[in-house]
């Protein structure tokens, strides 16, 4: 309950403070002292004496104080302090003396300490050198100033003063040395890359807890310190083998590894097959180590040949007969091939493989279905949907984006012998039409389009509803029906060799009938360039070229007496088509000859060729055979015409320029018009 409001630190000057070890740690004075003759009595003199006796001198001496750096040795002598701060010291000392006289007062009684202010003590008085105009002695000051200026001006020439120079003594400089510890400095730098800033910023916006571990992983994996890796390398042999094994297992089973490894395989395969793929795409093929391009002799007339490029085959498909092939509508590098399971006649699970041009040795997707696949086609509005028709009459749709080998929904199980289907992409709706061996042509309407594979159970809402059952025709409807994309007319071929033109809108009867073939029609194909021309092939070994309006074939092509399995137009050139006979492939170019095929390629002995496909954008054909292999051939030395759609009758002649045999043809083609 004692409060001291004066400068407490002064009181210590007359006291001694000892720390716990007994050392004298009394604080030293900051201000030096001047000797005072009355020093001896200073300690015991009373406060009053000090105050009143030396009042005036104290005031005066304050102005002559000079501050010198403290001298540590003086404290022991208890030098007296004459300076004004000692006044406060005395006051406090007095107070403490008073207190010390009452050391053991009982606390509850209490005592009063009265502190009162003294008068204002002036420590320093420096009068200003400015005098106000209104002051009393202003005139006297002015007079003095005037006298002074006069005096100064008269000093110049007067005899009372003369100039003299004097020299000041400059004391010698003395060097004083001191020693300190060096300041230790550490250089620290860091590089903030742009991505590091981005990562930190994006991470600070997210949950720190979950991201912390990932961030550490990422950082340690990307910011590799070379010396640390070297250290770990040297410790490699010391690592326990089991830890490495489990690490390996974990990595090998991860998703990212699967993806990396498949990309890696693609890259390697592309490296290996680079010349073949370049030929496929029609690019310059680089041969040899120094990349000298093969010079092409353009003027040379070489016989057209089929140059084999590569084969799509894998251990899974070996031995299965190939029935059908189709390209994906959206991504023309993806090929779907349907295989017959086991030997024909023996119903076994069929196989569908999706091959990609990026990986020529291994099919990316393999699906198995319960029966042999007879035909398949990709949808154009949903490019990942593949519709297949099977030997036992079922129609199914697969989603090739998923890797799971489960087909999405068996739509309709029917017990007819043969069923073939195609998917036509009309502009607005997706129509699936199937033709079956019992004479029914069914149009399917796809209602819902949900493909959810949740966990292991595919939940599909995909329902195909049979829209119309039309055309009860007693004989087998065997061949594939083609669609004329513009008008919705389709042509079907039948077992007895006649072909019927029907339309989607009219489901009751045929519009027209084309009769020419004596034996079953195997394939009908519309021309991709001329929209009202189609080809038909049949088992009697002939290929007929028809125009939609006329009921007689315009042209007919025969070469050997063998079943023509399939005929396909080339998508690049309007006059080229290819046909598959059992043991040979024939490519006809109508520009060059209409009597003979331009190119004949025989299959290897023992192998039956079963399906044919042209590659769009590249002059190559794909031939599937009974060994389960799809061989890609390049059409070499073909005069390829310009693949443009016919816009008017005048441009039909553009395609035939340069042809030597065109004299025979124009009379035929001029009658054609665009539909």
């Amino acid at each position, binding site marked *: 309950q004692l409060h001291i409001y004066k400068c407490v630190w002064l009181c210590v000057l007359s006291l001694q403070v000892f720390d716990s070890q007994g050392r004298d740690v009394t604080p030293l004075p900051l201000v030096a002292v001047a000797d005072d003759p009355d020093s001896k009595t200073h300690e015991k003199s009373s406060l009053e004496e000090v105050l009143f006796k030396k009042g005036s001198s104290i005031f005066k001496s304050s102005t002559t104080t000079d501050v010198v750096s403290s001298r540590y040795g003086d404290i022991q002598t208890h030098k007296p302090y004459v300076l004004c701060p000692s006044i406060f010291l005395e006051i406090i000392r007095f107070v403490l003396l008073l207190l010390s006289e009452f050391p053991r007062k009982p606390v509850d009684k209490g005592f009063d300490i009265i502190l009162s202010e003294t008068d204002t003590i002036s420590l320093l008085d420096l009068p200003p050198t400015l005098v106000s105009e209104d002051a009393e002695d202003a005139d006297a000051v002015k007079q003095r100033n005037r006298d002074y200026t006069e005096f100064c001006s008269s000093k110049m020439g007067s005899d009372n003063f003369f100039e003299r120079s004097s020299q000041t003594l400059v004391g010698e400089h003395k060097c004083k040395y001191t020693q300190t510890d060096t300041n230790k400095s550490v250089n620290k730098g860091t590089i903030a890359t742009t991505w590091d800033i981005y990562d930190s910023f994006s991470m600070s916006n997210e949950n720190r807890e979950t991201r912390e571990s990932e961030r550490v992983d990422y950082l340690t994996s990307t910011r590799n310190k070379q010396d640390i890796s070297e250290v770990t390398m040297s410790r490699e042999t010391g690592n326990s083998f089991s830890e490495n094994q489990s690490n*390996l297992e974990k990595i090998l089973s991860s998703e990212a590894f699967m993806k990396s490894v498949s990309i890696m395989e693609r890259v390697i395969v592309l490296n290996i097959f680079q010349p073949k793929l370049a030929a496929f795409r029609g690019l310059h093929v680089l041969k040899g180590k120094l990349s000298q391009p093969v010079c092409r002799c353009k003027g040379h007339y070489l016989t057209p040949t089929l140059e084999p490029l590569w084969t799509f085959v894998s251990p899974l498909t070996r031995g299965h007969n190939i029935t059908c092939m189709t390209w994906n509508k959206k991504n023309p590098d993806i090929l779907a091939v349907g295989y017959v399971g086991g030997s024909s006649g023996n119903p076994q699970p069929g196989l569908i493989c999706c091959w990609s041009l990026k990986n020529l040795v291994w099919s990316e997707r393999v699906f198995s279905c319960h029966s042999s696949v007879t035909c398949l086609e990709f949808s154009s509005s949903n490019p990942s949907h593949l519709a297949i028709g099977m030997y036992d009459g079922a129609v199914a749709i697969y989603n090739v984006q998923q890797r799971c080998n489960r087909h999405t929904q068996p739509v309709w199980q029917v017990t007819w012998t043969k069923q073939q289907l195609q998917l036509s992409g009309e502009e607005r709706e997706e129509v699936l039409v199937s033709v079956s061996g019992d004479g029914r042509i069914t149009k399917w309407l796809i209602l819902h389009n949900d493909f959810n594979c949740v966990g292991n159970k595919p939940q599909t809402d995909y329902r195909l509803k049979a829209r119309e059952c039309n055309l009860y025709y007693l004989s087998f409807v065997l061949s594939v029906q083609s669609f004329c994309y513009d008008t919705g007319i389709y042509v079907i071929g039948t077992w007895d060799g006649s072909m019927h033109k029907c339309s989607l809108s009219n489901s009751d009867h045929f519009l027209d009938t084309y009769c020419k073939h004596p034996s079953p029609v195997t394939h009908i194909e519309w021309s991709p360039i001329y929209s009202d021309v189609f080809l038909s092939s049949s088992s009697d070994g002939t290929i007929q070229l028809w125009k939609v309006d006329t009921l007689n074939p315009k042209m007919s092509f025969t070469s050997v007496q063998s079943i023509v399995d399939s005929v396909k137009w080339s998508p690049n050139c309007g006059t080229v088509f290819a046909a598959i006979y059992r043991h040979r492939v024939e490519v006809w170019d109508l520009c060059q000859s209409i009597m003979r095929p331009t190119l004949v390629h025989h299959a290897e002995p023992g192998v039956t060729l079963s399906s044919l496909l042209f590659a769009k954008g590249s002059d190559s054909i794909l031939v599937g055979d009974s060994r389960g292999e799809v061989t890609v051939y390049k059409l070499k030395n073909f005069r390829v015409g310009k693949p443009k759609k016919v816009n008017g009758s005048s441009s039909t002649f553009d395609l035939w320029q340069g042809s030597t045999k065109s004299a025979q043809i124009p009379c035929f083609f001029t009658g054609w018009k665009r539909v």
Partner: protein
Amino acid sequence: ADAEETLKRIEGHKGVIGTIIVNSEGLPIRTTLDNSTTSLYARLLRSFTTLARSAVRDVDPQNDLTFVRIRSKKQEILVAPENNFLLIVIQNPSE
């Protein structure tokens, strides 16, 4: 399973000299080459991939490195970088 098969197929492809899988610390955990070559490739390609990834991401931080191919006179080194491992294949494509 599938990944293992694919890896074995890769090793059997024409021209492939060897494959190395390196974990996130830089230790090769699976390799078909000898130890010294493996450690050499692992160490060098690790820092190289880090540098390549840093370069790609510096230009656009939302981008990321997916594959690195180094084609030299004698061979081609293919590196598939991932967050926790590195898949290295050395191929001689002109064999």
